[in-house]
């Protein structure tokens, strides 16, 4: 696959030329470019694949406190000139924004080695071979595999008229497999994610999905209620990203909390920073340079992103502050990182099972939606491998459950913590946030109803 994206030099040149032509008081240019390749499969055969090359240039212009933005995916001079003119026109038409923040000047960014030739160089042939290993093992076990392998390679550059320039290039790959038994009574899933394709054990993913499908055949119902659960890392990631990533700016937004419309609002006013919100073993942070996260060292506004601890020993240490809200509250902005890591412990999944008299192993969750933002209550279902544990052993596959539960409650009711790993935590299997989480044993997890879906 030809890897096409803008190098740092090219991005500097392109953004410089756009900024030179700006007639606004302030101008910001963001350029993303790169390739994405994917192969999908189902019923043990490839169904579709795609290789796409695209770019995106977003120009934001400001006259005083008025601003507007326009974007285009063309790098042609006329299209860029048009986008620049559109952004300026929209800015002139916009009312003054009392919250407008002046452009950031030059910043220092962490060096994040997120580019791997092993990922950038994957061809459709390489992807098809990986897929073949999953379909072969599924066929050997009498199952049918469906799955998705997506790789991206590209760069993001940000520049403004105050002299700021930021550049980051990265690769990423997610690989997920669902195996099903042909009679439709068993389903198993496994997946992995990293910037480096070599860090994904495709063979293990294929084998685990097939093995789970076979073990999950003929599930039986169990009365819904509160159970001890052993959440595999992906299941933890599915829930944790609700607090820690996808709702950055919402669940973790300092502003929403201070405005009295968030779980993190303090009754009477203010927010809950400094309060114990989770088990004392829970520590969560973002750090672009963490070798397991490798996320962008700057956010969309150009703010440098560094290590920031959200929860330390169970205490809420930080919420997300954008530049405006930080200034208003007299604190430093945090920026909006795109990855989160939770500290691991030393329990293995086997130890969690062995120590459980009666509990439920969960592979992953699905269709997670907010039920009540006041209590950070979510609903969703288990999927693709839900098993009963009795007297320290996995005894049988179970029907799936719907949960109505808060990820905060999960973090409060922790019994055991395992080793943290990077997971493919987006339900869609697409390249999502970098999420590094441990498996957890959690008591009193609320399963509200049963699902016969396999």
């Amino acid at each position, binding site marked *: 696959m030809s890897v096409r994206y803008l190098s740092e030099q090219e991005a500097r040149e392109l953004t410089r030329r756009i900024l030179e032509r700006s007639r606004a008081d302030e101008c910001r240019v963001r350029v993303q470019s790169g390739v994405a390749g994917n192969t999908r499969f189902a019923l043990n055969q490839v169904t579709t694949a795609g290789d796409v090359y695209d*770019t995106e240039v977003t120009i934001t212009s400001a006259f005083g406190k008025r601003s*507007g933005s326009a*974007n285009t995916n063309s790098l042609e001079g006329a299209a860029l000139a048009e986008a620049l003119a559109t952004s300026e026109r929209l800015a002139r*038409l916009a009312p003054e924004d009392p919250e407008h923040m002046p452009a950031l000047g030059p910043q220092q960014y962490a060096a994040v080695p997120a580019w791997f030739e092993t990922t950038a160089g994957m061809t459709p042939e390489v992807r098809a071979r990986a897929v073949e290993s999953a379909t072969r093992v599924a066929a050997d076990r009498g199952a049918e595999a469906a799955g998705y392998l997506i790789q991206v390679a590209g760069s993001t550059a940000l520049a403004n008229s105050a002299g700021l320039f930021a550049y980051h290039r990265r690769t990423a790959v997610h690989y997920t497999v669902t195996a099903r038994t042909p009679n439709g009574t068993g389903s198993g899933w496994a997946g992995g994610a990293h910037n480096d394709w070599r860090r994904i054990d495709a063979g293990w993913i294929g084998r685990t999905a097939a093995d789970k499908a076979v073990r999950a055949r003929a599930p039986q119902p169990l009365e819904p209620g509160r159970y001890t659960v052993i959440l595999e890392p992906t299941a933890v990631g599915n829930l944790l990203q609700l607090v820690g990533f996808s709702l950055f700016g919402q669940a973790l937004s300092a502003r929403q909390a201070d405005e*009295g419309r968030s779980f993190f609002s303090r009754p009477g006013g203010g927010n809950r920073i400094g309060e114990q919100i989770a088990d004392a073993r829970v520590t969560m942070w973002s750090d672009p340079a963490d070798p397991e996260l490798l996320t962008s060292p700057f956010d969309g506004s150009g703010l440098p992103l560094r290590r920031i601890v959200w929860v330390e020993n169970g205490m809420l240490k930080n919420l997300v502050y954008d530049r405006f809200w930080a200034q208003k509250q007299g604190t430093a902005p945090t920026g909006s990182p795109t990855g989160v890591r939770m500290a691991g412990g030393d329990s293995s999944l086997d130890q969690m099972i062995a120590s459980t008299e009666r509990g439920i192993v969960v592979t992953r969750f699905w269709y*997670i939606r907010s039920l*009540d933002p006041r209590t950070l209550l979510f609903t969703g279902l288990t999927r693709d491998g839900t098993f009963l544990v009795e007297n320290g052993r996995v005894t049988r596959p179970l029907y799936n459950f719907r949960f109505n539960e808060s990820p905060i409650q999960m973090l409060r009711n922790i019994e055991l913590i395992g080793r943290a790993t990077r997971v493919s935590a987006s339900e869609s299997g697409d390249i999502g946030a970098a999420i590094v989480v441990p498996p957890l044993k959690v008591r009193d997890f609320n399963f509200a109803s049963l699902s016969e879906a*396999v």
Partner: protein
Amino acid sequence: MDRREFLRRGSSASALGLLAPDALGRVMTLPRPRRRAEVRDLVLAAIDAARRAGASYADARLSRVRSQSVSTRERRVQNISSSETVGIGIRVLRQGSWGFAATRELTPDEVARAARQAVEQARANRRLQRRPVVLAPVQAFPDAVWETPIRVDPFEVPIEDKVGLLLQANEAALAVKGARFVNSSLFFHREETTFASTDGSFIRQTLYRVQPSLNVTAVTDDFSDFQSRESVEIAPVAAGYEHVTEAKLVENAPRWAEEAVAKLAARPVEPRRYTLVLHPSHLWLTIHESIGHPTELDRALGYEANYAGTSFLAPPEQVLGKFRYGPELMNIQADRTQERALATTGWDHDGVPADQWLLVKNGIFVDYQTTRDQVAWIEQLTGVRRSHGCSYAESWAAVPFQRMPNVSLLPGEEDIGVDELIADTDDGIYIVGEGSYSIDQQRYNFQFGGQLFYRIEKGKLAGMLKDVAYQSRTPDFWNSLDRIGGPRGYFLGGSLFDGKGQPGQSNAVSHGCVPARFRDVNVLNTGRSRA
């Protein structure tokens, strides 16, 4: 190549000299469109290159998608933006395997390269082929044109009017005591597509979508509680700016704000079984999740198992013409021709003309949603030899696959509305507007919230409830349907962001329905302590 082109061309002042501001102060219209002949040459060159590289079938879609959004909160504009993406996607069949490649570089050489890349991919994919792809026949449409009927082009309306409308609506909401925050936005979308296939079709289409919305949040004085009310009765539709005008945001905002405040004082629901009267502004989403998705044929056969899931409506031979979805009065129509509906089009992305057909007839499941490559899987069972035209790709960069048409509950024969349903109910809950939604991967177990909940006692509304969600199992739920409204209660709901596929793609789809009543449904209380 393009970047050099820009660096070269961009350095000459002439490219920028054309940019005199629009005297009318209007938002930029499209950049000068590429000449139609040039577009035609590119799409034809693409399928020609694919054929020369060994494709037995090829299609090319060159699309230009333009969107504009304005968003505000309280008395400020948060964002005004305009976006455009242009490119070409080329799909090929070679020895029964699909390949797809897409590029933003619209030059003959690059388009030919992408076509060859698609064929290479099909070659790589064939090593795992078990059942070759077979396309159902379709008539050639060598010079077809279709456009969403609109009255006012939203891209021609001055931006000041849009900003002014939203800020005025916000002001109207904030005038209500207790309404502390308000967000409002307008979103406009135009999708121009030129499609050509080796089956001899050449089709140009322009689709429009528009969505106004407003969300009010009320917070108690002591910061102990908050509630929001979204303008869910204002659905996104395929129309022009007239839909924004008809939405009457300024006139409706005080009522939405009052309802947000009223929710703070609503009674917590007592969890148990109730009769539910569902307003169509709520019911459309239940139809989407529990009928729209399970009737997708790719899901039923396992093609979406890794993400969207499969379907309880399987295998086809055991359910087609046999499965009782609901009572006799239940008729569900799939339709890509309905005016204002989001999935309405002239031709789908396989080049198949729009269709209208029944999925559920008198309560019995009778057909699925299909694309050309799916017809052969069930034609022996249904007797339908054509595709129902459900192929769609969200952009030039995405591969087309089976997406949901507009799926609607047809009105009943009784000329009644929601008031009659409430008057005829002794002990129930009336739900308005969609809220939280979640359903399992085979579409059995679902749980839905809403915007507004009212207790029904002895045929009358008896106060507002909160923390309501109902949970059921699709066949049980639809078989508990016992009465539906007539045409006068018809409402077209919908979503711009129905997700499916890997990579995930958004499909815009509408669902028409009438108010309906369901007996003996399990209702939960979702309230929890905030401690």
